[in-house]
């Protein structure tokens, strides 16, 4: 049944409406085998709805989703046995121990008892909970639950993992460990991973490709480099500049340079909006005039600013229509 498609996930004009509101609007998402894909978007952008449709837990209003050649709403069991899902803010049965919870998952996946035992031990060790398995989940901290959630996914040994907001509510150290684990799961085990998040810089380091989802629409998709290219080639760039001495004249000098369209002071930092990359010309000019640049950076190079940029653009667009 699995087709020879290059993509593990492919959606075609996928839509989900709740009344008048479109949670997911003509989504065309493609995720290749063996990559880490970051689905980014602000809260309420339709990330979780998309994931639920991929798992067959929600029926699409129209359009189609395919996971490894299976339609989740027609063959939910094939899809669900292949996909490990870590819901956002994952929950467990508090009155059961961590191990018992995992055994339940294993039983639902029809994994034999001794095989389950082996996998659970391994999974708990891998997520850093080797000794907590015998404790009741009610005593677990938020971070431990999240780890147990990942162990729960690993017990299933899926070829494809979906994580919904995995970094939410974990301390910074925990996030680093989690990201390292995700990297490991992708590179060592060769699993495909889809991460949804609204915190870009956190998952930037592990994602091979990202898609930006705003108001149910995928407004950009590709590698981070590709997104940068798209951004740099656009009509205007933003430069951050600090220089000594940072007096008023600095602004005048910058304004005189060809290509600068707008200057704003942000405390002691200058924000230059320009129509092309003027960095070289700017530095030469400054030095010639006796100024020394101490900070110069092109906004939009970090994923965060790419995201902000796209997000703002969309917001403006929707702001006008509504």
């Amino acid at each position, binding site marked *: 049944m699995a087709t020879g498609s290059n993509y593990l996930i492919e959606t075609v004009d996928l839509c989900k409406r709740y009344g008048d509101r479109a949670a997911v609007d003509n989504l065309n998402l493609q995720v290749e085998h063996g990559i880490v894909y970051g689905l980014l978007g602000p809260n309420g952008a339709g990330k*979780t*709805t998309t994931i*639920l449709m991929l*798992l067959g*837990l*929600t029926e699409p209003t129209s359009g189609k989703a395919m996971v490894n050649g299976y339609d989740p709403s027609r063959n*939910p*069991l094939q899809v*669900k*046995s292949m*996909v*490990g*899902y870590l*819901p956002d*803010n*994952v*929950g*467990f*049965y*508090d*009155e059961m121990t961590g191990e018992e919870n995992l055994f*339940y*998952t294993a*039983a*639902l*996946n*029809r994994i034999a008892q001794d095989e389950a035992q082996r996998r659970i031990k391994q999974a708990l060790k891998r997520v850093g909970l080797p000794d907590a398995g015998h404790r009741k989940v009610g005593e677990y901290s938020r971070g431990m639950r999240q780890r147990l*959630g990942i162990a*729960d996914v690993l017990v*299933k040994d899926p070829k494809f993992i979906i994580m919904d907001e995995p970094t939410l509510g974990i301390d910074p150290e925990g996030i680093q460990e989690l990201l390292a684990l995700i990297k490991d799961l992708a590179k060592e085990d060769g699993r495909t991973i889809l991460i949804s998040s609204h915190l870009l810089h956190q998952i930037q380091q592990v994602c091979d490709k990202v898609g930006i989802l705003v108001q149910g629409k995928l407004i950009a998709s590709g590698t981070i480099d590709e997104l940068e290219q798209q951004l740099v080639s656009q009509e205007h760039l933003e430069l951050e500049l600090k220089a000594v001495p940072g007096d008023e004249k600095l602004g005048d000098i910058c304004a005189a340079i060809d290509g600068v369209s707008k200057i704003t002071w942000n405390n002691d930092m200058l924000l230059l909006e320009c129509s092309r990359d003027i960095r070289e010309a700017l530095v030469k000019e400054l030095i010639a005039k006796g100024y020394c640049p101490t900070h110069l950076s092109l906004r939009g190079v970090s994923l965060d600013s790419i995201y902000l940029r796209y997000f703002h653009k969309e917001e403006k667009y929707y702001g006008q229509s509504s």
Partner: protein
Amino acid sequence: MDKAANWQDIKIDFSRVVEANKGLATVVKKEVGDHLSGKRFSILALLVFVTCLGALYIAASTIRTSAGQGELDFVFLLLFTTSGASMPFSFLSFISLLGPLIGLTLGFDAINGERDRRTLSRILSQPIYRDALINGKFIAGVIVIAIIIFGLGFLVAGLGLLITGIPPTLDELFRLIAYLTLSVIYISFWLALSILFSILFRQTSTSALAGVALWLFLAVFFTLLAGMVADGIYPVQDTSDADQVLANTRTEQLISRVSPAYLYSEAVSTIMNPEVRAMGPVLLEQAYGTLKGALSFGQSLLLIWPHVVGLIAAMLICFGLAYISFMRQEIRA
């Protein structure tokens, strides 16, 4: 030849049934375990256990005092149906009063509890069909109810046997089993209802309250209401003729029977009392010339058969509604 082909068909169907219910056994096993080890269940079982032992004690002592006064048939059944002066409750009335509470307790947080704990989406993302969860929860509930009711019934029977020293006849044993089975069906109705509430209401406290409210309404107020409605349609005064009185009584009974609680109590008091020959008003001319005597088990069962069917239907309707609303509900809050 034909027969062989039929067998083949059945085999295929069976494997399909297994395929369609993947994970059901796992869910049932887990839920039964949860119920039996939960505090909630222990409290409830203790409550029912103590009250039923109390009822048995009263019944046994009442039987003893009245033993010399006349012939006593069906002593074994009297253990379940007799109430004393100090405690106007028999085993039968305790179960019909507290039984619904067992059903409600087992089911009121079936689905919204999973939602609260955020386990619903995790469980449903495992390779099982969505209905395996709700079917599993219902079946597990019925199993637990059967364990409680049959355990309790046979415990009281055994203790009664020790106290009175009179062994039951086969007829009495059948009646007891029929009674206990009927109780399981009735309590399962409440289980199905509370599961339905747990799907319709997002808060566990709301669904629990809704269940208790309906229980009080059906158990206490509904018969009063039926009487009032019947009096409204067919007012009865001292001067009313027989037709009017009869119509009033029949209407009241008809309305009361809408309530599964009434249906159940009518059915069990008939099956546990072989002397009951008819339900509803009996005219003197109908009773004239009848021979005194008890009905056999089969005849009693025939008398309550519509009730049995009605209770099973009520249970299935409730569960059907729960099933449909669960299948249509969004997983996400």
